[in-house]
């Protein structure tokens, strides 16, 4: 795609001409509504709604689109106009696709044995948009799904056809390496074994973290280690919005974690949206691999 506006305008006009044209004409569902596909879906979703099992089972309404999918063998019912539109976008470099919106209305339940047919129209094609994934066009279709000839539901679907912003072309940014020296080597050896080791002064028994050559309490240079249980709480935290550092995608939460043993460690709080991290939140240790050489202890938020 070139940078000249009039070229884009002309291309957009060609795309706009597809609005209102059919995307599928009397497409036929590859399988009638059936119990095995319903069960596989419910297993994947963890959905145990009683209406979706047993002798009078109905299909989960949210499966509406599933019955129209082409699967590995493609869409025989697809109209020429839709394939043409997708080809035009492919040729313009918009070879990737991602779905962004789905609006479904359910008019009658689908039951095992129902034969599915569907008609689909290209509702709109957007102007050229630049997104995080790349630059492309939103294509919206509207599909009427029929079961044994009667309208069972409607399905509006929006995809982004885009030219990928090749992230791979620049080398992947790696996290900074830890500085390992004779005073803290034992800590990193523990991390490699998925153990978080706390130093313990063998003179006075005081625990210390991060690792240091001597005890702040009694000055003794002698120590052994205690493995952390992995339980902890957020003692304090910051959310980093700016500036971005290589290998870190803001916003993210950096926590000062108080371990059950009483010492504190700085690390990422993971598995919780950055804006949901709170002081006092219980967290649990886990080890994450960030690249071939780097494993780090991080803390998974434990929501009650």
């Amino acid at each position: 795609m070139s940078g000249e506006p009039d070229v884009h305008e002309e291309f957009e006009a060609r795309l706009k001409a597809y609005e209102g044209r059919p995307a599928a004409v009397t497409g036929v569902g590859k399988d009638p509504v059936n119990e095995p596909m319903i069960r596989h879906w419910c297993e994947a979703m963890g959905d145990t709604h009683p209406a979706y099992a047993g002798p009078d089972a109905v299909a989960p309404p949210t499966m509406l689109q599933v019955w129209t999918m082409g699967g590995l063998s493609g869409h025989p019912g697809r109209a020429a106009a839709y394939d043409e539109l997708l080809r035009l976008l492919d040729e313009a470099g918009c070879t990737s696709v991602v779905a962004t919106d789905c609006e479904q209305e359910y008019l009658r339940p689908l039951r095992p044995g129902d034969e599915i047919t569907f008609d689909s129209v290209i509702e709109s094609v957007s102007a050229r948009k630049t997104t995080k994934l790349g630059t492309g066009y939103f294509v919206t279709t509207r599909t009427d799904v029929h079961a044994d000839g009667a309208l069972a539901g409607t399905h509006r679907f929006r995809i982004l056809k885009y030219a990928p912003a090749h992230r791979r072309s620049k080398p992947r940014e790696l996290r900074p390496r830890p500085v390992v020296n004779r005073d803290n080597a034992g800590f990193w050896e523990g991390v490699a074994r998925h153990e978080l080791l706390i130093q313990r002064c063998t003179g006075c028994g005081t625990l210390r973290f991060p690792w240091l050559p001597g005890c702040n309490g009694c000055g003794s240079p002698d120590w052994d280690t205690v493995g952390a249980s992995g339980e902890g709480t957020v003692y304090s935290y910051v959310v980093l919005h700016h500036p971005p550092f290589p290998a870190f995608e803001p916003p993210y939460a950096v926590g000062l974690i108080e371990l059950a043993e009483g010492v504190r460690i700085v690390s990422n709080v993971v598995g919780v949206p950055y804006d949901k991290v709170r002081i006092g939140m219980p967290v649990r240790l886990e080890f994450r691999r960030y690249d071939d050489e780097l494993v780090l202890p991080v803390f998974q938020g434990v929501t009650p």
Partner: protein
Amino acid sequence: MNAGDRLPPLEIPITRTLIVAGAIASRDYQDVHHDPDLAREKGSPDIFMNILTTNGLVGRYITDHFGPRAVLRRVAIRLGAPNHPGDTMVLTGTVEQVDGDTATVRVVGANGIGTHVTGTVTVRVPA
């Protein structure tokens, strides 16, 4: 059920297995939902959940809450930050409107990188 009611959150660990199982159960063989290398070539750091799975999870969240009589009438969702393996999505919902036995619920699904899904579900709960 009353307007303003908040649904208890539902936490969904986004495993690689869930993403792939959801894609296959929905007959969606787009490589970005099962092949990490091809997903990266398309500008994504890893595979990500397909919209049909998100749709199914949003529907499940609502019927889990409203119980065995609940019937979905409409589900409208918009996707934002993708659900990648290793993340957790937390679904929350607020009843926006109640009309007889039918409720409209605003649903948000947040993951570690932002808002994965926002949507509106209309559900009928016959007495």
